[in-house]
């Protein structure tokens, strides 16, 4: 009884917006956002979270016309299994306060809903955005701790090794640095792990925007990001030691402690961008997206 045009219109409506899905997703997403906001976004180790969420949402939003045109609903049994597993993780993580499991469950539920609407083909085609979105899931604290400590040791050793040849009276023991009469503890924030994660996320976002989702190239630049971030943090500690030595403890511990972090982050980012423009022109197998 309906004309082909009406049928097409109905189909369009169906894929455009679904109240039950929106309400359901918000019901699980809002409590998680609240938990993340209180537990990780407000600290340095998770500060990139909201940024990743917003940029990922924007990347996905740009693709929506294409996704709608090509997408076809996914299989029911896959949705059923995926949703059961994701929501079970979500309930456990949210109720018993395990933030990683909470966020991972929500992430899974989001992927399943996307799959239900648009199918596996569209999930594959936008793999980069979903991978990027993983940066919004905080890793377990124990993983972070096991990486942070060796990194702290390494940046402390490297920073003192850089300065000693210049006759600066600096020594270190483990993660404690002695400058003149002062003694500094290299804090977790200075290990550089946080800036590695943040820099990695921003770099990937930038690579995707400028060069599309070539996985080889993304991997290559991501691998470069790690040593750059570590060097940037060594540089940050060197600056702080020099400030202590020449401008005094107050300057180093006050305003500059914070500023040095930002400045170093920006320098590292600039370095990555310039490396990209250097290698990007010679690297094969990339495609430009409009």
């Amino acid at each position, binding site marked *: 009884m309906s004309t082909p045009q009406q049928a097409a219109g109905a189909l369009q409506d169906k894929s455009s917006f679904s109240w039950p*899905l929106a309400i359901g997703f918000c019901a699980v997403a809002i409590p998680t956002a609240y938990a993340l906001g209180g537990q990780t976004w407000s600290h340095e180790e998770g500060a990139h979270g909201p940024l990743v969420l917003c940029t990922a949402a924007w990347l996905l939003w740009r693709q929506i016309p294409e996704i709608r045109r090509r997408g076809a609903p996914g299989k029911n049994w896959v949705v059923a299994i995926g949703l059961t597993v994701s*929501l079970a993780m979500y309930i456990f993580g949210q109720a018993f306060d395990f933030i990683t499991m909470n966020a991972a469950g929500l992430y899974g539920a989001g992927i399943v809903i996307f799959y239900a609407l648009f199918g596996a083909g569209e999930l594959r085609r936008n793999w980069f955005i979903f991978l990027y979105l993983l940066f919004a899931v905080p890793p377990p604290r124990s993983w972070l701790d096991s990486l942070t400590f060796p990194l702290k040791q390494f940046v402390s050793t490297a920073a003192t090794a850089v300065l000693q040849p210049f006759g600066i009276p600096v020594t270190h023991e483990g*993660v404690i640095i002695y400058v003149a009469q002062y003694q500094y503890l290299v804090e*977790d924030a200075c290990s550089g792990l946080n800036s590695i994660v943040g820099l990695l996320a921003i770099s990937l976002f930038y690579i995707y925007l400028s060069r599309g989702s070539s996985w080889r190239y993304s991997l290559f630049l991501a691998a470069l990001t790690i040593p750059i971030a570590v060097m940037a943090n060594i540089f940050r500690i060197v600056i702080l030691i020099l400030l202590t030595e020449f401008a005094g403890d107050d300057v180093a511990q006050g305003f500059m402690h914070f500023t040095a972090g930002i400045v170093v982050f920006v320098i590292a980012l600039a370095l990555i961008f310039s490396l990209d423009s250097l290698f990007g022109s010679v690297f094969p197998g990339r495609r430009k997206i409009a």
Partner: protein
Amino acid sequence: MTSRRDLIIGGACVLSAGAVLALKPTRKVSLMPPGRKLSEILPPGFNDWSSRDVSDLYAPETPDSLQARLYGETVGRIYSQQGSGTQIMMLMAHGDSQSNELQLHRPEVCYPAYGFSIVESQPVQLTLEKPVTLPGRRMVAETAQEKDAVTYWTRLGEYFPVGVTEQRLERLQTAVHRYVPDGLLARFSIAGADTNAAFRAMEAFISDLILHVADDHRAALIGTARARMLLEAQGARKA
């Protein structure tokens, strides 16, 4: 247009959110005597021990430090014994609600963060008064200049985790029983080379210290069950 499938998916999500509300522990349980502070219930001196308060047993404090976020109250004291000159560093920290974000930091994790390497670490049963014992841990930590013998225990509600994994599992157990526990870290250390003598001295001291805490305040340090057992053991000895 709304499909039946959308309704099922959306409904499952809303139900999950409801399940969380039903499961989430809301009741806070603290073993601290109401209106009392750690610094009040721990005797500043007893027998031939006297003490002075210190604040820098940790590394330098900063306002946003983890320590400030973790614990509601910390007490740092150095107890000295008159005759022998033995000095024992004590750090007690209490946090009202233990969650993923705010949980006890175990010395075997935080000593390395302050530049120590741990050369020895093993669980131990601290004897409070025969036959009452308390599960804790002995640890030897050293830097190039310093060697510390450390004895400590942690209390999570009524549990006494002796490792990171136990601590996590026991927090889960409290969540399953639908309450949020309080947490206590009790750490004692002696600096010096003879760690065996140090452990003996500290463990005798710990037992003495707890016996000098008022009967009805002991649960905050050693849990309700052990506080009661200790009272019974004392009663049996007197009888």
